[in-house]
Every structure is written in structure tokens, then in C-alpha cells.
């Protein structure tokens, strides 16, 4: 017992000695569920890492807090011929180490972003080459006409040539060769914040760049930022409630009410750009994993419609997502270019109709199906799938749910080995054109791995080629609308919802919640 009282005594003394020492400078502390993968802006095309790096590095053209394109390192741009975009660079910009920014850096950055080991394909893949015209003018030559180039390149950040060369970081890390890279843990950009310290997996600190070119019109008052990854949901919530964090995200759905009622912090929610939907194997004659003797039932459109009518998106919104989702009839969100609200009408929830459709298709006694879902990727992914399992049971479809880690799940999905699956998508360039390219074209038409059910329709393939090169926005929109009408009439996918972004923010702190889940320090103010 003596020992116990000793521990209590020590606890008391420690607590006394280290009581909070008054107000600090304007320091913003926040946490996300995983770490920034690398400080190298070309290492991985991953949304969270790139959104953090945007505080240090800047692109030529960028998204503002409303996701509209605005000038960044380039002050203006224009298409001078169908495959050439000319960017006029801003004068007088300095990198954090004091070096001047010019056209050479842009050309260098393009070469580095397309080098072996770089993962910038989604952003610079359409560009053939970058050509220096003069000290502050650069031409980006595209392989085909790309009317959306300024938004395509918004996550391709410019690095300093001299800095990279001086530190042996001319190319990103190539995993095949066991060589580290200076740029993985160091950074030198032009942005409003500079990297102060980096301990991978532990904490990353940033300090305001007083020489930032936009300092005159700056809208933030924080002088430093500390980022910590906190993987455990309960700990992230506790750290916000204990005042150790100013912001954390994502807020676990089950903790929303607790945070709201704490009086310490509030939950900031808005619709996210990621759309969740279900897909089906539309290619195989027989399903791979489901114990069905006959042909693949999904090849019959009535079966797909039956499943659509059986899924109650409203119930999922209110019970599983506790209100934090928006049911949808499309596979992209409002805010993605090409979204048309007129098409956003779901098939009604109607299990009786489902049963009738199944009976018409010859499945009056139902069938058994394997469904696959990730369990660590989307908000409440596994729970949603469990609820869908129950909903389908009501119309006689017995679902065997296989919920697995994202690594396993996406490994199977990209090999097209899934029968019935959950999927979520956010187009990197925020344009429906890439949604079509990734999810609606079969592999033989240039579609990519994530079209898990290998859906294809000749009309969509045909329209897709035209959409890519159409420069008239109205015509382009009309063609996209047709694509999504075809998709809807084919019931190629069963759309579910857009999950909501959910950030826990301490009272007295204001942040801008951008729809792509980016938290930019240049919009943070602390009272």
C-alpha cells in the first residue's frame, strides 16, 4: 500500500510542477488518423499528404477554399493552341531558402514529376513536356487537347531546381533501389508555411513564412502548426476534449454527440466529394465466389434493379451514418465538374418491386451472393455493408459478407475478382471526365483497374473519346449527361451516398473545411 500512495504522491508533484504556463503564441495543433506519407510532393498521389504539402509547396494554379481555380505561382494562363497552355509566372517569389523562383524550376519540376519513382500520373500524365519560353513564361505541351489543364495540375507543386540538385534529390525515391532521398524528410517550397521539423509518424511542425508572396493579403493569424497522426479514434476524440488539440479529423461517427455536448469543441460537417456506391461483376458468365450453379445473375438488368430498389439509402443515412451523409443517384458528388442535379434522382426504396423483379428474372427463390467491402477505408464501411446484407435478405438474396482491410480489398478489386462490392471514389482532378475514364470504361477501352465489375457500354466509350477533346463547356456537359443517363439506365452501379466531412474543432478556432478534406493553414485563425 505504501507503494501505491507513493505513486499517487509522485503524480501529484508532477502535475503541480507542470501546470499549463499561461497562453502560448498562436500555435495550431491538429491530428489526422494517419501520417503524411512523405515530404516529397511527388512520392505519392495521395489526397491527405498532398493537401498538407500544399502549405509548404505551391502549384502554378490552385484551388481556393471553395474549390475554384485561382492563380498561384502563375499569375495568368491561356491556351495558345489546342495542345499548348502558356503560363505567365509571378515575379519576385522566393523559395524558403531564399532562392528565386523562375521558369527553370517549373521545367525541372515537370521532369522530376515524370521521373521513375514519381507517382504524379493523375496530375501531369496528360502533359508531353514543359518548355521554358523566357525567365517567367512556361509552355506546357499536352499530348492531346486538355481544356481542364489548370485544374488538372493543381496538386503538382513546384520545387526548386538548385535545392534539389544541391541535396541529391533530383529524382524521387525509387523503391527498387535502396537509396534514401533528402526530399523525403526535408522541404523547400514557396508556400505560406515552412517545414520546421519532421519526425515521421510522430510529429511534424510548421512555422509561418514571413516572406511569403501572399503575406500582404494573408487571412491567417497562426504562427506555427504542429501536426500529429493519431490512429486510435477514441484517443483522437479524447485529445480534442482534453484541449491538447485545436482540430482533429475525421471525427468518429459515434463520438459526434459527445463532442457537441462537451462545451469544449464543436463538430464541423459538410458534404464531402467522395461518393460511395456498390458495383457488380458485369463481365463473367459465372460469378467467381458465389455458390450459384447458373449464370451470373448480374448480367440480368432486372437483378441489378431489384438490388437497387432493396437498398434503403435514407435508413443508412439516419441509422448507420447518424445523419452524416447525402444519398445520391450518381457516382460523383456536387462540386465535381460535370455533376448535373437533374440526374440525381434515386430509384425509390421498394422491396416489393424488388421481389417482383427477381421473380421475373427467374430468381423467385433468391440466390446466395458474396459481397466484399473494405473495413478500414470509408466511414462506417463495414457497418453499411452489414445493413445492406440485411436489406438484401429481405428480398431473398442471402449475402455472405467478406469485410477485409483496404489492402486486401483493393488488391482483389483491381484484379476484378469481386462479385458484389462496395466502392468509393473521388476524382483527382475533380472532373467527371476522369470518373468516366476510371469507372465506366472496360479495360480493353482504356479503362483502369478500379472498374471492379468491368462495366462497359459502347455508347459511353464513344462519348468518352469526344468528351476528352471537347472544348465547348455546354457540349461537353451534354455528352457527360448522356453518359450518366446510360449508366443509370444500365444500372451499372448502385450509388449510395456522399459521406460527410467531419472535423472536431476547438471553440475559439476557425478553419476552412474544403470539400476535398484539405485543411489549409492559410485559412486558420485562433482567438
Amino acid at each position, binding site marked *: 500500500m505504501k507503494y501505491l500512495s507513493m505513486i499517487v504522491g509522485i503524480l501529484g508533484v508532477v502535475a503541480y510542477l*507542470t501546470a499549463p504556463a499561461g497562453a502560448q503564441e498562436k500555435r495550431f495543433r491538429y491530428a489526422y488518423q494517419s501520417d503524411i506519407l512523405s515530404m516529397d510532393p511527388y512520392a505519392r*498521389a495521395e489526397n491527405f499528404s498532398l493537401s498538407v504539402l500544399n502549405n509548404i509547396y505551391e502549384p502554378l494554379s490552385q484551388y481556393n477554399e471553395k474549390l475554384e481555380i485561382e492563380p498561384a505561382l502563375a499569375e495568368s494562363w491561356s491556351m495558345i493552341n489546342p495542345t499548348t497552355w502558356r503560363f505567365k509566372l509571378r515575379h519576385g517569389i522566393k523559395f524558403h531558402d531564399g532562392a528565386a523562383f523562375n521558369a527553370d524550376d517549373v521545367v525541372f519540376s515537370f521532369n522530376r514529376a515524370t521521373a521513375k519513382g514519381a507517382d504524379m500520373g*493523375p496530375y501531369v*500524365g496528360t502533359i508531353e513536356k514543359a518548355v521554358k519560353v523566357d525567365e517567367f513564361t512556361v509552355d506546357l505541351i499536352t499530348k492531346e487537347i486538355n481544356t481542364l489543364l489548370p485544374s488538372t495540375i493543381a496538386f503538382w507543386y513546384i520545387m526548386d531546381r538548385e535545392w534539389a540538385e544541391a541535396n541529391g534529390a533530383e529524382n524521387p525515391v525509387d523503391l527498387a533501389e535502396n537509396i534514401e532521398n533528402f526530399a523525403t524528410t526535408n522541404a523547400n517550397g514557396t508556400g505560406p508555411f515552412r517545414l520546421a521539423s519532421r519526425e515521421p509518424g510522430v510529429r511534424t511542425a510548421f512555422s509561418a513564412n514571413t516572406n511569403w508572396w501572399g503575406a500582404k493579403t494573408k487571412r491567417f493569424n497562426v504562427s506555427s502548426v504542429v501536426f*500529429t497522426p493519431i490512429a486510435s479514434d477514441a484517443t483522437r476524440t479524447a485529445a480534442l476534449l482534453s484541449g491538447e488539440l485545436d482540430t482533429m479529423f475525421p471525427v468518429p461517427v459515434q463520438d459526434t454527440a459527445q463532442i457537441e455536448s462537451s462545451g469544449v469543441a464543436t463538430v464541423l460537417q459538410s458534404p464531402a466529394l467522395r461518393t460511395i456506391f456498390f458495383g457488380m461483376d458485369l463481365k463473367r458468365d459465372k460469378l467467381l465466389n458465389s455458390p450459384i450453379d447458373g449464370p451470373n445473375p448480374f448480367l440480368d438488368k432486372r437483378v441489378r434493379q431489384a438490388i437497387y430498389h432493396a437498398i434503403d439509402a435514407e435508413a443508412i443515412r439516419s441509422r448507420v451514418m447518424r445523419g452524416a451523409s447525402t444519398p445520391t443517384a450518381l457516382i460523383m458528388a456536387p462540386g465535381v465538374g460535370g455533376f448535373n442535379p437533374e440526374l440525381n434522382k434515386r430509384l425509390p426504396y421498394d422491396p416489393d418491386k424488388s421481389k417482383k423483379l427477381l421473380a421475373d428474372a427467374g430468381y423467385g427463390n433468391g440466390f446466395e451472393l458474396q459481397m466484399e467491402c473494405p473495413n478500414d477505408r470509408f466511414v462506417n464501411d463495414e457497418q453499411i455493408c452489414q445493413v445492406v446484407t440485411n436489406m438484401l435478405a429481405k428480398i431473398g438474396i442471402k449475402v455472405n459478407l467478406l469485410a477485409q482491410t483496404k489492402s486486401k480489398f483493393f488488391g482483389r478489386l483491381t484484379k476484378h475478382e469481386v462479385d458484389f462490392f462496395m466502392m468509393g471514389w473521388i476524382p483527382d482532378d475533380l472532373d467527371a471526365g476522369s470518373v468516366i475514364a476510371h469507372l465506366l470504361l472496360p479495360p480493353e477501352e482504356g479503362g483502369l483497374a478500379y472498374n471492379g465489375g468491368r462495366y462497359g457500354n459502347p455508347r459511353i466509350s464513344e462519348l468518352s473519346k469526344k468528351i476528352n477533346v471537347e472544348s465547348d463547356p455546354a457540349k461537353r456537359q451534354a455528352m457527360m449527361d448522356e453518359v450518366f443517363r446510360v449508366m443509370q439506365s444500365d444500372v451499372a452501379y448502385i450509388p449510395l451516398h456522399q459521406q460527410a466531412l467531419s472535423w472536431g474543432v476547438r471553440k475559439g478556432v476557425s478553419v476552412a473545411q474544403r470539400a476535398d478534406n484539405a485543411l489549409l493553414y492559410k485559412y486558420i485563425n485562433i482567438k
Partner: protein
Amino acid sequence: MLQFVISRLFQSIIVMIGVALVSFAVFNFAGDPVTNLVGMQSTDEKREEVRESLGLNDSVPEQFFNFVSRSVNLEFGISFQHRRLVTDVIAERLPATLELSIVAALLALLIGVPLGVYTALRRDSVVSQFVMSLSLIGVSLPTFLIGILLIYIFAVTFRILPSFGRGEVVDIGFWSTGLLTISGLKSLILPSITLAMFQMTLIMRLVRSEMLEVLRTDFIQFARARGLTNKVVNFTYALMNTLVPVLTVVGLQLGSIIAFSLITETVFQWPGLGLMFISAVFEVDVPIISTYLLLVALFFVSINLAVDLLYYIVDPRLRVAQSQ
């Protein structure tokens, strides 16, 4: 003695190879690393290129052979996730885990052994009964629950201790320590108690039952009959004789404290090996997973070896048996 050590070393190597084989077999079920290596919107050619460059297209025996031969040369490759040398990543994380584990082990020993002795000697006292029933909670509550409970009491409600992280650390050469700063020490309190809780109660209950057994033996009765003081009988003869099994368990538990600190590390976002391992599993970071498993196997094997050698020091009977 020498022969004994050599035969144990030989066994250890077999164990290590076994672990390598098992951990390697596990990768094939962990998922496809390539989906985590390239952005979602990469082309199939890009995926194939990455797969090829990492040797994932080689046959399984070939991959295993390459893995073992590289490991023998202490080449563990580049972490897929961190894009840094695995050895560097592990060296960075090791101090955090070792400091936490050692503090937890010390806590468990320094509290567990005296409590065990006390509850054995004063079996029927109210305090003993209380401690024993309290210890049931320690054995039965899962670690993460204890951790979250402590966080809500000390971090959220009273706000006297941090809920996550390691606080400020000081670098001494390659070793970063949190033991020299106040925030580091404060950060250590909750995780080390959480991690120590199970071991503490285990050790306490073990010491108690061993002690009760020894106290019943003839030689203790004899010692008492000869009029030796309680102090000498209890602490010199009885306690020393309970230590052999306790040592075995403590040794093995130290290994598992290090290996299984991952739950505590996850709850407290403690930047050690366990946390690194968990995220590596989710991301299928094969170089990290394999190196970590080998390292943990090495810990277990060497702790076992050390425990075997310690028997000689603690238990004179073994020395006698050997020399005959």
C-alpha cells in the same frame, strides 16, 4: 556450460529461420502492396512496373530466398510507406518502445513482487483481500480499455496528464529519450501503467502462490523451529526460493511486453515499434513487417537465453548438477 550456450544458440537460429518463413508466408495473405504504393488513378502499366521492380512477380521460393539472403546481410530494404531505410525507421522507433517496456516491466516488478509477498504473508488481512480482488480487474480488463479509461480520467477530466504522444524528447547520440524532460515523464505515466497492469497482477499472483507453497515446505518449518527471525525466514529463504519460476515468467513477459506493446502504443499514439508495425500491416509495408517480426523473434530468443543463464546464478542446485 559452454556446450549448453552453444546448443541454445543453435536452437535460436532455427527459431529465427522458422519465424522468417512464417512471416514470409503471412505476406501472401496480407493483401496487395501495389495498391498502396501508387495513387488510385495510376495506370495498369504503372502498377505492373512497380510490381516488377519490387520483385513481386518472382516465384514464392525465389522471393523467400532473396529475403533471407538479404536479411543475413542486414539489408532490409526501403519501407514502402515511409520511403526510408527500414533500419533507420526502426532505429528511430526502438528507443520509444524500449523505454516504455522497461519502465513498465520495472513497475510490474517493483509493485508486483512486494504485493505478492505481502498478500502471501498476510493472507487473511483486509488489505490482502482487497488487493487480490483488485488484481482480478487487472488480469481480466483488456489493455485498450484500461488505457482509454486512464485517458478519460487523467487527461480529459482532470487534464493533468497528456492523452497521446511521447512529449519532448532529448537526443543523446542515436538514442532519443523522453526520460529527461518533464513532458516526457508525464507522457510516460499513463502508457507505462497501462502496459504494466497485466504483468503486475500476473507477477503478484504468481509470487503469492509460489510463496505460499514454499512457506509450507519442511525446510521453512525447520528454519522457524530453529528460531530464525521471521525476516530472515521470509525474505532470505522463502523469497529466494520462489524466484526461479518468477524469473522465467518475468523474462518471457519482458519479451511480450515489447512485442505486445502495440495495443498500448496504439491507444496512446506512442511512437514506438508497435505503432509502426500496426500501420505497416494496414499498408502492407512488407519490408517493415518482416524486419519487425525478425527483430521481435530476436528479442524473445535472446531474453530466453539470458533467463536460462540467470537460472545458474539464482539456483545453486543447477550449478551442482552441472558440475557432477
